[in-house]
């Protein structure tokens, strides 16, 4: 929590707590056809509050990754509706979806977050450049300082450690001030120390900066950083935990048979 002090001074306009940042309604996603068809999402209804850190958990094959991909507009659904803010994204075509991802959503993936040809700075600013937006210099400096990337900006991904790479990915997600940041197992490839650092930053961006973060994880420790844990099993909602701790998450998962 060394950085928390620096950040408290920089609390910007907080997201409107209480409104819904993303929501799924009767979501169905089927893989395959006929006998081999698998209902990855089987009529899910779930809403994610703005300004909150939500973790999606569940055993392997529960549909947690699929749910996130659909919410983020990365994948199509078979039926049901998804809203990001007021926009029903299930009605958008590929081009508009791309624009939505570019302008309103941020991503942190498990691995391979960065383009190997670009420097850390170029990677951070890539989304803004794609959108043709000018970066807010002050905001950029703030993020870079907070994430401790100042002297790493000219380095290429291959010259960065795994933790540093994930922090660059976080910076990229934050710099555009998106409505929602989706994080797909952001700590899955990291050692526990680097993982803790990344999770700290994500939590801080929610608490201090009013960011909305939705994270998929299978790690109860990671989930304990969230405000709320949504549990999935067999493509359905299987419960939720508010203010989770590692123990409460482990218990809940044990009940799901994971």
């Amino acid at each position, binding site marked *: 929590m060394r950085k928390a002090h620096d950040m408290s001074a920089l609390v910007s306009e907080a997201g409107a707590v209480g409104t819904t940042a993303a929501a799924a309604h009767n979501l169905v996603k089927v893989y395959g056809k006929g006998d081999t068809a698998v209902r990855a999402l089987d009529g899910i209804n779930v809403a994610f509050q703005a300004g909150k850190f939500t973790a999606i958990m569940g055993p392997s094959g529960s549909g947690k990754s699929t749910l996130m991909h659909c919410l983020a507009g990365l994948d199509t659904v078979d039926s049901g509706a998804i809203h990001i803010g007021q926009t029903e994204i299930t009605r958008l075509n590929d081009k508009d979806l791309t624009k939505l991802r570019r302008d309103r959503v941020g991503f942190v*993936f498990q691995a391979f977050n960065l*383009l*190997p040809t670009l420097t850390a700075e170029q990677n951070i600013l890539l989304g803004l450049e794609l959108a043709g937006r000018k970066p807010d210099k002050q905001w950029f400096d703030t993020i870079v300082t907070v994430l401790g990337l100042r002297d790493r900006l000219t380095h290429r991904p291959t010259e960065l450690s795994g933790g540093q790479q994930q922090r660059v990915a976080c910076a990229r997600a934050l710099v555009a001030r998106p409505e929602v940041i989706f994080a797909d197992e952001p700590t899955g490839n990291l050692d526990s120390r680097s993982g803790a650092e990344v999770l700290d930053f994500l939590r801080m961006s929610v608490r201090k900066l009013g960011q909305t973060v939705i994270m998929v994880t299978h790690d109860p420790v990671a989930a304990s950083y969230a405000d709320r844990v949504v549990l999935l099993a067999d493509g359905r909602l299987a419960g939720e935990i508010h203010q989770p701790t590692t123990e409460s998450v482990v218990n809940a998962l044990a009940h799901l048979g994971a």
Partner: protein
Amino acid sequence: MWKTILAGLRARTARLVLSSIAIALGVAFVTGTLVLGDAVGEQTRDNFARSARNVDAAVHLAENSTEQEKGIPADFLQKIRATSGVEGADSREFGRAALIGGDGKAKQALVQPLPTTEKLRDFNLKDGRFPTGADEIAVDSKTAQIAKLKVGDTLKLLGEGEAEHSYTIVGSYQQGASSLSMSGSDHLIVSPEGMRTLVPEQRIYEIVAVAKSGVSQQQLVDNITKTIGPGYQVQTGEELTKATLAQVGDAASEIKTFLLAFAAISLIVAGMVIYNTFTILVAQRTKELALLRCVGAERGQVFRSVLAEAVFMGLAASVLGFLGGIGVSAGLQSVISSFGGPSGGESEIRLPISWVTIAAAFGVGVVVTVLSAVLPARRATQVAPVAALRSQPDSSDDVARTGKIRIAVAAVIALLGGAGVYFGLQQQREEPALFITGGATMVLLLAVLLLGPLYVPLVNRLFGKALRGVPAKLASANAGRNPKRTAATTAALMIGVTIVAMVTVVAGSGRETMIKKVDERFPSDYAVSSSVYDQPLTQKFADELAKVRNVALVAPELRAFGESTKLEYADVTGYPSEALGSLVRPPLSEGTITGLKDGEIVMRDKEAQKAGVGVGSTVPISGKDFKVVGLIKDNSYGTGIVTLASAQSILKEPAKGYQNLLVKLAPGTDIAQARTDLERVIATSPVAVLNSAAETKAELNGQIDQILLFIWALVGLALIIALFGIANTLTLSVLERTRESALLRALGLTRGQLRQMLVVESILMALIGAVVGVLLGAGFGWLLVEAISNPEFQISFSIPFGQIGAMLGLAVVAAIIAAALPARRAARNSVVAGMAEA
């Protein structure tokens, strides 16, 4: 292990298909080049040495034979036909007869009997059929065109003793270029019986024979020599071909050498495309190989599996490529012949397949594939399996800095090349200069290619600076991420473009050279002569001719008979001084003819010997002293050549007119139009007859053009292969960067932008190859032009900007096409599936 190999082949179909295409293309290129090369060889042999076609043995009189007047004894033909090993034999002879044209004027024509052995006919039938009866005749297509004769017409010939013979035209034919056909006179073929009635006295100058299958040319020659005894020259068909080609000009042999060089280049380009594909492929397989090792496969087993796979792929793709190459060369030939020169109609599609072609095709296909697969696999298996498993599949990891060794090797090669160029430029003679310099430029090219990874990123960055927009910038970064790969990909194109640019630069001047050579043989385009000796062509008629449009110069020829104290006869030939050295250009052994002044003479060297004079001394003719300024090697022109004024001064009374008028057309004149124009004036004189070299020249130039077209076709082939190389690299890169593309799409790159990114990358690679190639090619072209030029024969160096611009444009268009499929593929991929790809 076999199961793993087969499973591997099945699982990685897409990638294997791609690399198979690369191999097949490479093999197709080599096959196509060699087949085309052999086809060009056959074509030139057929055009320039048609009289040696199918001939296995040829009998001539010995050079110093006393029988020259009588020719080869007629009974030899029967003897040779009865000789063992002879399948068929024919005698060759020709006679002269006067052809009475539609205008009633008589013209000298050459008549040949039709060989009875079909294989030994040195003509290609164009229309109708060959004559069979004594009253039938076939006409050379050029003669038919000029004299406006067609099949079914009646034709009259004046034979010996002014006897008139009448024939029905049954066909027309095309003659190969030979010293006979290039003599400019009209040609006819009659049946052997017809020949005897027209020219009773037979004078055989050559007997040609075909061997039975299984009998070698040398065996046949030996048998025939035994049959006919000594005193005759018996040659193999191969020797005859060489002799004939040497007689016609050595253009054909130069082309053959050029084609061989090109085939070698095609081997290198093909090898590069294949090697490049495989390096990418194996780099991606490193993980898989490591996994195999982790589960207990021995290094040797892994190695053998890669080897077996490569052999299988190499063989399969080589078969496809081989067939494809034959198809491509057939296609290119049909394209060429559809817009070939004046003789375009006669070119047929030839597909000679030699053992060399087969060996080269499969050699490249299998050996290069195996090497390209095995070398990287060896490297891959030397890494500890776990380390290999951990490494990212992205090839930017193995971007090695251009090693010092590479630079040193390139420097040594460049030095060698530079020395070669220097040595080549020192050569006085045209041919060695051309070959040494040409070879040396290829060595320099090799050095430049080796240094590719060094300057390709620089050029890429230079181009990248000009680019705007995120996709274009990403493209530039992608093109620069693996300098070795980009360099290798662009290298194939670079070679192709270098050769094109070089050929474009040299071909222009090369064509000039060849046209000049033809010009030397036929300095004038037309000769107008009088058919009646006592009625020479008047000065007024000459003036009328000079007024005809597109006529650049009319040079009258005046024979003047004088006396000399030093010579038995002293008949000189006079020409206007402006025609000397241009229209009149006899081979000289000494001195010069250009700028001959009144009172000077260029003497025939034999005459000079008789008179006991040399250059610098004087010879008296009809009371005047002529200063000898040069010596002629030729046998015409009487005692020698003087100016027109000098010739007139020798005559006792002023000349009534001229026996001969030489006509030169302005460069680039349409021959058919010029002939119509000239004929209008000629019709006004009852005695004037038009003899032509122009049509012969046009035909020869057409053949040169056709050969140049062939070379262009080869170069086109190289470009196509190189662009497929780009497409292939790009496709593999797209496969390799699936996750990256998905990430970009997730971050907000639209499908269109993703496609744009790949297209720009493709254009960048094409432009790097093309621009460097053009620069190299122009430079090498300049060196070559410098090498061929000598004080007597200057070729001016010029860069055909239009053609080179078109070439760069084509490269860009082709790059866009090359990127089309990979871009489509990349854009279609789903983001989620892409991110999941390991």
